């Protein structure tokens, strides 16, 4: 009884969402009954600037197919400059992951405000659509426990 892995494969996304905006944005998508794929596991963080590159590497190493970091629009950071710092730091993470040969589509950043439920749904929908053709991420992943 073997099923075609291409049809059954569901990408697993780890989404680090800023509690001041993107997390509320995802709530808004929910209460607005907007349909979007259920592939993302949200992890609420105090600020996108608090996302250590270590979180992203570890997510990939524990088997995430894609990692999303979503924060407030520039100028809207609750801590004034957290998202600017995140942008610089995570740009380097993205470049480094591409440099060692991870598909560039697997790491993504977005700015989603608390009022943009529809945008959040769109970001996740696009991400899943981009990840599906890539198949499971087995490059950085360690042995499954």
């Amino acid at each position, binding site marked *: 009884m073997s099923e075609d892995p291409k049809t059954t494969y569901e990408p697993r996304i780890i989404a680090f969402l800023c509690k001041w905006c993107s997390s509320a944005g995802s709530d808004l998508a929910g209460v607005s009954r907007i349909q979007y794929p259920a592939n993302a596991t949200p992890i609420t963080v105090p600020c996108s600037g608090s996302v250590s*590159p*270590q979180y992203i*590497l*570890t997510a990939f*190493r524990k088997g995430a197919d894609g990692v999303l970091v979503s924060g407030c629009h*520039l100028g809207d950071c609750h801590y004034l*400059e957290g998202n*600017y*710092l995140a*942008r*610089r*730091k995570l*740009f*380097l*993470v*993205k*470049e*480094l*992951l*591409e*440099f*060692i*040969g*991870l*598909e*560039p589509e697997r790491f*993504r*950043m*977005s*700015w989603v405000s608390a009022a943009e439920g529809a945008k959040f749904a769109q*970001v996740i929908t*696009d991400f899943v659509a981009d990840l599906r053709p890539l198949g499971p991420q087995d*490059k*950085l*992943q*360690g*042995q499954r426990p």
Partner: protein
Amino acid sequence: MIDPEELRTRARDLLEGGQVRAVIGYRRGTRGWAAEPVVITRSEEAQDLVWDPSCVHNLALYLVQDRRRRGVLRGPPDRPIGILAKGCDARAIVVLMQENYVQRDEVYIIGLSCESSGMLDERKLAGAAEGIDPQDLEAVDFEGDAFVLSSRHQQWRLPAAGVMAERCLECRNPCPKVHDTLLGKEPREQERRGQALTPAMSDPFAELQRFEQTADSVEARWDFWSRQFDRCIRCFACRSVCPMCYCEECMVDSISFVVTPDTTAQEKANRLRWIERSASRSDNIGYHLTRALHLAGRCIDCGECERVCPVRIPLRLLNTKMERESRERFGYEPGASVEVAALLSSFRDDDPNDFIR
């Protein structure tokens, strides 16, 4: 080129005059021609100091170790410590000062300009010329744009560009910018570029570019790097030799988690472990990428990590990649100035934004 005698006199004067409590430098090692780092505290020892193309080590590492030792002694230093610094070593010291790890008045920097030359790469030496056995060599010396290698019976004069370390070929400032006293001359741009040592001299990221040209797709790069990371045996030599890796506790081996007879199995199991010490591919990638990211904006490209790697992982590629991105995208140059805010604790409005949705 710098006369070693001049260097010895300078160190002797500093120690005799009591201006410094010690001088970190190089002396002839026990392995024939190769120099080794040394800390001298008495003026008589100054005669042991050497300066030749085998002075590859980044001495800023010993500044870090001195600072660690002082941390244990708890007393403030009464006098600064003297240190010989090539262009790269001086950049490392600048980063340490920028991060407030050492203070400017705790260090007396004796700048050494590599002028238009650089350091010898021992690995390139094998097979560089007929009949040279690195084991037999007794001395190496600068001579214009060449290195002179001497064994007991013979001498060779090799063009420096052929056997010079890759990082020296790509070096942008072989002359220390921050120093208390400087030996040797500031090389003129034309001299360095025009001397036709190698085209790489004019191109600071030559090796990185060569790599990107050969491995121009995601698959090719993964193919390359997965093989490199698989080889890593996790000896942590790269970490030990790096003057920027001065954290008290490293992500890969927790020292603050003290295991006593009372520690329960549950406590041990629940301990936070980002990266294991096992040499598996996934953990190796975690280790090397973490290191590259922790060095982003701090690595001054002394190339020591790559030199000491026993399995020859091209670690400089990771670090120069970060260096090039920060230079091109953020206009940041590590080790250029003590006053500038660090790469990852500053930002500009026009940082790249097009990768964000």
